[in-house]
């Protein structure tokens, strides 16, 4: 049986993204703790340098796949180039990060390779020489253990679930560069735009008071603002759900598709703690969460947990603050 594990690297601005090293770490676990069966593929325009760097850092063998049509990510071009290559290797696993590139590519690639596809993997179990994969359901309220039943399996790994891979400093992986031509594709990636939102206020604040769907109605933002008012320098953040209903603008959104923040204090009010939200607050020093649901996932990352209805709790805090602390 073939036991090659392929990692498809994600990179930007000439360097591998951190999630690439996390995917390699996951591959190393699948490989039994080392990098002997790992082959990292770096598709792109000029990726030989990135490949060298990955091979140096992790000790894994790396193939840079360079070619026309690969400069910007384009699902169709990537699949065209990777399909043939992967059909030859017949890897046991193909590992990608669970990012906007990874989850775009993985399912369609799996269809082409007649592989199973397991997304957002957070953990691997090993039993009787078999691997099973643990992934969340219902925003982490529940987990599923999934077993593939195909020769090849494509998995995407949740960012942050593995620590970045490091190899032994004396063993550098082999690097080879191959050229590929994606030919003409129907899909055309025109450019990458960076968001126009000015998010500096959030990313530079020491204290962020953040609102979730649990505030119930737009009017309750005044509670959040009043609470923010008791701190010297604070900013208002929120979950995506709050932006989607139009209560706050997207520049306030914290999370993978919003702003990544690292304040000294993050106070989450009525936020359930979806993985996409929580990934954005990993750098916070102290997290306080207020939620009516004692099982809310936000409590698994919070330092101080308050199981209360924010409509009663925030006024109680404001009242006690006025009584005890304001001079």
């Amino acid at each position: 049986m073939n036991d090659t594990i392929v990692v498809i690297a994600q990179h930007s601005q000439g360097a591998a993204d951190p999630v690439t090293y996390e995917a390699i770490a996951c591959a190393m676990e699948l490989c039994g703790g080392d990098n002997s069966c790992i082959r990292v593929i770096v598709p792109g325009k000029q990726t030989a340098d990135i490949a060298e760097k990955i091979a140096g850092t992790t000790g894994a063998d790396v193939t840079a796949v360079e070619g026309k049509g690969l400069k910007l990510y384009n699902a169709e071009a990537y699949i065209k180039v990777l399909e043939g290559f992967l059909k030859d290797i017949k890897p046991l696993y193909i590992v990608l990060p669970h990012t906007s590139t990874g989850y775009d590519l993985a399912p369609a690639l799996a269809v082409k390779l007649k592989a199973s596809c397991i997304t957002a993997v957070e953990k691997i179990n090993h039993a009787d020489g078999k691997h099973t994969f643990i992934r969340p359901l219902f925003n982490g309220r529940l987990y599923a253990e999934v077993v593939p039943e195909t020769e090849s399996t494509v998995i995407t790994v949740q960012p942050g679930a593995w620590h970045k891979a490091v190899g032994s400093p004396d063993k550098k992986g082999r690097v080879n560069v191959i050229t590929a031509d994606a030919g003409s594709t129907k899909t055309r990636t025109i450019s990458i735009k960076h968001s126009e939102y000015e998010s500096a206020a959030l990313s530079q604040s020491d204290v962020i008071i953040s609102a979730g769907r649990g505030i119930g109605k737009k009017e309750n933002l005044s509670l959040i603002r009043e609470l923010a008012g008791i701190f010297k320098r604070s900013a208002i953040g929120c979950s995506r759900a709050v932006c989607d209903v139009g209560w706050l603008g997207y520049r306030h959104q914290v999370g993978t598709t919003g702003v990544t923040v690292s304040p000294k204090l993050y106070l989450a009010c009525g936020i359930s703690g979806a993985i996409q939200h929580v990934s954005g607050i990993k750098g916070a020093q102290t997290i306080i969460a207020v939620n009516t649901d004692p099982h809310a996932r936000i409590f698994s990352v919070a330092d101080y947990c308050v199981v209360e209805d924010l409509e009663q709790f925030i006024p109680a805090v404001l009242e006690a603050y006025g009584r005890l602390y304001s001079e």
Partner: protein
Amino acid sequence: MKILVCVKQVYVPGTDVTIDHSSGWIQYNPTGFRLNSYDEYALEEALLIKERIADTRVHAVSIGPGRTEVAIRRAMEIGADEGIQIRYEKEGYLSPYQTASLISSYAKEKQYDLIMTGVTAEDDMQMQTGQMIAGTLNYPYASSVIKLEMKTEHLVYVERECDAMRRECVELPMPCVLTIQSGINKPRYPALSNVLRTKQQKLMEIPAQDLVMPEAREKIIKVFLPETTARGVFLQGSAKEKAVELLRILHEKAFL
């Protein structure tokens, strides 16, 4: 134009999630079902196209047992012209590949210009079905679409929402598959006229056996509740007492 919107009836558990140990799947509370909210954004996007381009028809398709009729009818009440129910009676988990195969096999000869889905389903959060439909039908696709413009009769321009506030600007010809991200629009509520129209309409029912339904390529062997990993301190007492305690902590840590 002809647009197919794939909708899912998702189960949204309340505060209590129970696992049914005989089936190994979650125990459904009949009141917990609703139309996947990401699909509402996909449907709205289709309806916005219909408003701009004459003779556009919007179909909503869903797979599942009888109960899924409610979600399909909801999509029709919101504005889909027609509802298609692919009847698959077994409760529990249907893999994205099986779902995509059934939808592809239905859609194959139907000349849809656009096939749309929500970026993910709120229940199993796979983010796979749309991309797999595209893979099966050999259509170009884009996932996580946060902006959509019809360039010409045959060409769509989309912006894909990527991580770290980046957007990928992509052009693709139709037919194609798009998975739609929340926030792209403001989904409308059902209008009375559509509610009345829907009442008169029949769904098109197709038994799953009449379509191509491959074996699942992966199986769920177990679902389980995560261990309570709360690492923090739960404040105790009444709301007032908790408030005083929280302020004490904030003061002690020099936040106030």
